C-alpha cells in the first residue's frame, strides 16, 4: 500500500470513473467554481493523465489536491462505485514524494505535527496543556490585543486564532482504564479517545463511555493511545499511517473485544480500513482484517445492540434540535440513519432536518489552515442553514465539524448549542436518576 503511486495503482480503479458527471452537483468545490478541474471527475482525469504519462505531478496538481476537501460526497453520489478516497490519498502521497510542496516552514510544521506530536500521545498532551496555559492565563488575549501576533511567521499567524480551546482534563483523567456497567455486562468494548477529541472534547469521550455503560458494555480505555493515523493517510504520509495502525492493533487486540468504538467521524472512516492499509504486511494482515470487522462507530454500535431510550430529557424544556452530518461519517462510513435514530429516542427533543445536512462544513482535517478562504465560505453556508432551522441545538459527531460549526455560529452571533449526539444521550441517562 505504502508504495502505491498513481502510475502503479490498479488502472481499473481509474477507469471505473466513466465521467458521467453525477458527482458534480455534490462537490462543494465544483459548486463554488463550476470549473471541471475542481470536480471529482476532473481530478480523476488529471490522475489518469499522470498514470498515462501525459502529465507530471506538478504545482497545479498539488494545489488542486489541496483544494479538494476529501469530503467524499462524490463517493456517495457515484453510481459506478469509484473509490475516490483511495485515489485521493494516493495522489496526495505522490505529491509528498515529489517534493513539490517542500519548503522550510511547511516542513517544520509538518514534521512537528505529523511526525512528532501526532506520533507521541504524551507529547501531544503536554503541548495541549501548554496551549491551555497560554489560553487561560490571559496571555492569549494580551498577545492578541497588543497585536503581537504580527510578530509570528505568516503560517503560524493564520493558525493562532484557530487553536481550539483546550479542555481542563484529558480523557485519561476522566475515564478509568476499565469501567463496568451496573448489572450483568453484555459486551466488552474498547473506546478510542482520539487526538483532538482527547485534547479539546475529552468530555465527549466521558459521555461516550457513559452511554456505553448504560447499555451494558464493559468499557476499556487505555490511558495513553496513539493517533489512529487518519491525518497521516489523508496528508500523503502512508508509511507513518501504517506504523500507527500497527501500534493501535498491538494496543487493542481485536480478538479481545466485541467491538472497538470510535466516536469521531473522521477517525472512524480511516480506522475501518486497516485491513487494506496493512494488506502487504504478513505479520499484521489478519489482525488488521479482524480489526476492521470489530470497528464500530458509536452510533452504529448503540443502534446495533438496541440501546434503550432514556426516560429523562437532557434539557430543562422541550428543544428543537438539528443534525449536521460529518462527511466521514456519512460519506466515509455511510452512517446516516443511526445518529438520527438515537436523537429521536431522546425525550423532549424534536429533530428538524438540516438543509444540506451532508454538505461539508469546511473543517475537513487541516483545510481551515490550508484553504482558509474556501473553508470560511463553507462554514458560512453551514451556519446559515443551521440558523434557518430555528433549532436551539445542533448535534454533530466529529471534533473538526464541532469546532467549525461552533466558530461559525459564534461569528454569526447565534446562541445555538453544539453537542455530540452521544453527549445528549449520556446527559439524558444521567438525569434519569435526578
Amino acid at each position, binding site marked *: 500500500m505504502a508504495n502505491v503511486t498513481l502510475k502503479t495503482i490498479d488502472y*481499473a480503479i481509474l*477507469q471505473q470513473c466513466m465521467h458521467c458527471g453525477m458527482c458534480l452537483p455534490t462537490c462543494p468545490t465544483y459548486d463554488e467554481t463550476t470549473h471541471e478541474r475542481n470536480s471529482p471527475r476532473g481530478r480523476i482525469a488529471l490522475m489518469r493523465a499522470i498514470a498515462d504519462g501525459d502529465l507530471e505531478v506538478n504545482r497545479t496538481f498539488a494545489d488542486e489536491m489541496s483544494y479538494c476537501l476529501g469530503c467524499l460526497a462524490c463517493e456517495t453520489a457515484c453510481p459506478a462505485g469509484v473509490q475516490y478516497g483511495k485515489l485521493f490519498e494516493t495522489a496526495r502521497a505522490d505529491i509528498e514524494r515529489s517534493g513539490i510542496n517542500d519548503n522550510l516552514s511547511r516542513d517544520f510544521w509538518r514534521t512537528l505535527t505529523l511526525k512528532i506530536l501526532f506520533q507521541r500521545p504524551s507529547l501531544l498532551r503536554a503541548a495541549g496543556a501548554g496551549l491551555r496555559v497560554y489560553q487561560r492565563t490571559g496571555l492569549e488575549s494580551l498577545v492578541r490585543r497588543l497585536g503581537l501576533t504580527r510578530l509570528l511567521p505568516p503560517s503560524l499567524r493564520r493558525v493562532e486564532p484557530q487553536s481550539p480551546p483546550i479542555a481542563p482534563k484529558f480523557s485519561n483523567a476522566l475515564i478509568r482504564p476499565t469501567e463496568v456497567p451496573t448489572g450483568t455486562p453484555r459486551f466488552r468494548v474498547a473506546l478510542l479517545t482520539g487526538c483532538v477529541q482527547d485534547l479539546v472534547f475529552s468530555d465527549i469521550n466521558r459521555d461516550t463511555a457513559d452511554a456505553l455503560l448504560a447499555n451494558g458494555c464493559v468499557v476499556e480505555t487505555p490511558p495513553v493511545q496513539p493517533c489512529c493515523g487518519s491525518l497521516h493517510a489523508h496528508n500523503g504520509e502512508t508509511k507513518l499511517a501504517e506504523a500507527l495502525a500497527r501500534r493501535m492493533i498491538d494496543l487493542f487486540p481485536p480478538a479481545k473485544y466485541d467491538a472497538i468504538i470510535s466516536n469521531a467521524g473522521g477517525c472512524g472512516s480511516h480506522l475501518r480500513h486497516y485491513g487494506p492499509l496493512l494488506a502487504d504486511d504478513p505479520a499484521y494482515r489478519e489482525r488488521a482484517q479482524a480489526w476492521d470487522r470489530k470497528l464500530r462507530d458509536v452510533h452504529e454500535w448503540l443502534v446495533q445492540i438496541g440501546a434503550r431510550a432514556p426516560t429523562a430529557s437532557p434539557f430543562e424544556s422541550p428543544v428543537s434540535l438539528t443534525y449536521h452530518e460529518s462527511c466521514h461519517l456519512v460519506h466515509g462510513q455511510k452512517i446516516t440513519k443511526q445518529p438520527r435514530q438515537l436523537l429521536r429516542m431522546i425525550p423532549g427533543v424534536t429533530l428538524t432536518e438540516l438543509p444540506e445536512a451532508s454538505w461539508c462544513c469546511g473543517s475537513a482535517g487541516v483545510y481551515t489552515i490550508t484553504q482558509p478562504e474556501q473553508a470560511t465560505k463553507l462554514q458560512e453556508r453551514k451556519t446559515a442553514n443551521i440558523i434557518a432551522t430555528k433549532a436551539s441545538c445542533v448535534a454533530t459527531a466529529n471534533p473538526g465539524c464541532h469546532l467549525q460549526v461552533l466558530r461559525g455560529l459564534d461569528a454569526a452571533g447565534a446562541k445555538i448549542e453544539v453537542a455530540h449526539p452521544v453527549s445528549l444521550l449520556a446527559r439524558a441517562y444521567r438525569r434519569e436518576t435526578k
Partner: protein
Amino acid sequence: MKPPARPNVRSVDVALNDSLLTALTAVVGSDRLLTAADDLIPYSFDGTAAIRVRPGAVVFPLTTDEVAACVRAAAEAGVPIVTRGSGTGLSGGSVAAPEALVLCLARMNRILEVDAENLTMRAQAGAVTMKIDEAAARHGLLYPPDPGSMRISTIGGNVAENSGGLRGLKYGVTRDYVMALEVVLADGRITRFGSACVKDVAGYSLKDLFVGSEGTLGIITEVLIKLVPKPAARRTMLALFDTMESAASAVSAIIAAKIIPCTLEFLDRTTASCVEDYAKVGLPTDCEAVLLMETDGHPAAVADEAERMAAIAAAQGAREVRTAKDDAEATNLASARRNAFSALARRRPTTILEDVTVPRNRLAEMVTFIAETAARHHLQVGTFGHMGDGNLHPTFLTDERDEAEMARVHHALDEIVTKTLEVGGTITGEHGVGLAKKPWLRQQMGDHSYELMREVKRALDPKGLLNPGKIFD
C-alpha cells in the same frame, strides 16, 4: 496494463493563436479563459465512454452578448467552436474537437422568469434541469422531461440533444416543451425563434431546426419552455418477471389497452442488481426483468389505471406486482433508475451504451435479439430502457484495454443497429448522433435526406466551424 493507443486523443502542442486569445481575454477577462493543459484535460470528455479529445481553450461567457463576441472572434480566426453545458451527453456531442474553442455555458445558469399565468419559464442555457423543475414546482407546475443526468444537465444541452427521460411516454421529450429559443449563429448574429404563443405558424418553424441540432447549427443561449400543471396524484409500481419477453409483452399489452402511463421503465437482471448495489432501494435482483410503472394525474384516474396495469402485468406472467408505499419511495425508485447506466460501470471498466428505439410492437423481438447477439459474441450486456417508448439501452460491459473484445463489441453493435433499422427503428431515441452514432446515420436516413441535412448545415455554418465532426463529417 494501459489501454492501447487511442487514435481519437490528440494532445495540443500549439495553443490557439495569440490574437484569438487576446480577443477572448478582451471579452471575458483572463479568469474566465482556460488554456493550460491541467485545466483543459478535464474538458476532454463528456459522459460518453472511451472518447477523449483535448480542446485548445475553454471560455466561460456569462451573457448572450459575450457568447456572440466569442463566436465572432473564433470565426475570424477560423477556429472551431464546441458548445458545452455540464458535459453529461451520451453520444459525444459535447466532446471537444482538436484545437477547438470550448464555449462552456454552465455559468449562464439563471432562471430568468417563471410565468405562472402563461405556464412558461425563461432561462439561460446553462440552467440546471432539476433547478428548472424545482422552480416550476414552487408554482405548482411541472417541467416533464427528466433525463438521467437531470441533477446537473443543463437545459441548453437538453434542447441541443433533444433529451428524453423517464416520463417521455406520456409527456414527450424536450422538443415538446420548447416554445422559443435565442440562438447565436455561426457569424455571431443573435437571433430569436418561436414565441410565447401556444399557437404560432408564422413562417418555417426554425426553432425546431435547432432542437436536437447538437451545437452544429448555432449556439442556444436562452430558452422559453412550456410547463404543465403538476399532477395531483401518482402511483408507482414494480412488476417482476421471469423472462424479458413477458415484460416486453406486458408493455405492449398496456399500450394496446389504451393506457398511457407516464413511465414504463425496464431493467434486466444485470442492471437491476447493479442499481440495487448502488442505491439500495429494494429493487429485486432475483428475477430476469423488472418493470417500473408509474401513472399520474387525477386521483381517481390514477387509481383506475394502476389497477388495470397491475392486472395486465399479472396476466402477462408477472410473478409479483409491488406498489411504492409513499411518494418518497416512488421518488427513490425513479432516481435509482436514472442512475442505471452509471451503475452498470460497477461491473467492468468500460460501458458502451446504445440508444436504439423500435416501434413498440417489435419490442419483445428486439429484446431477444439483443440477448442473443451478446451471447453470440461472448459479451456481457445489461439492458434497460424506456420500454413504453420502445427505447432500449443495451449496454455492453467491457474493457477498452481489450482490443479483441472491443472489436466484438463493435460487431455486436453493428448487428443490433442493422436489426433496429430492419424493424423500422432509429439509431438514437434520445441521446443524439454526436460522434458515437455517426457511422450509422446515412444507413438510417438514406442518401437524399442525409445530403439535405448537410445542405442545411452548410447554409447555416458555411465555414464548418460549429461543433465540426458531429452528426456527420
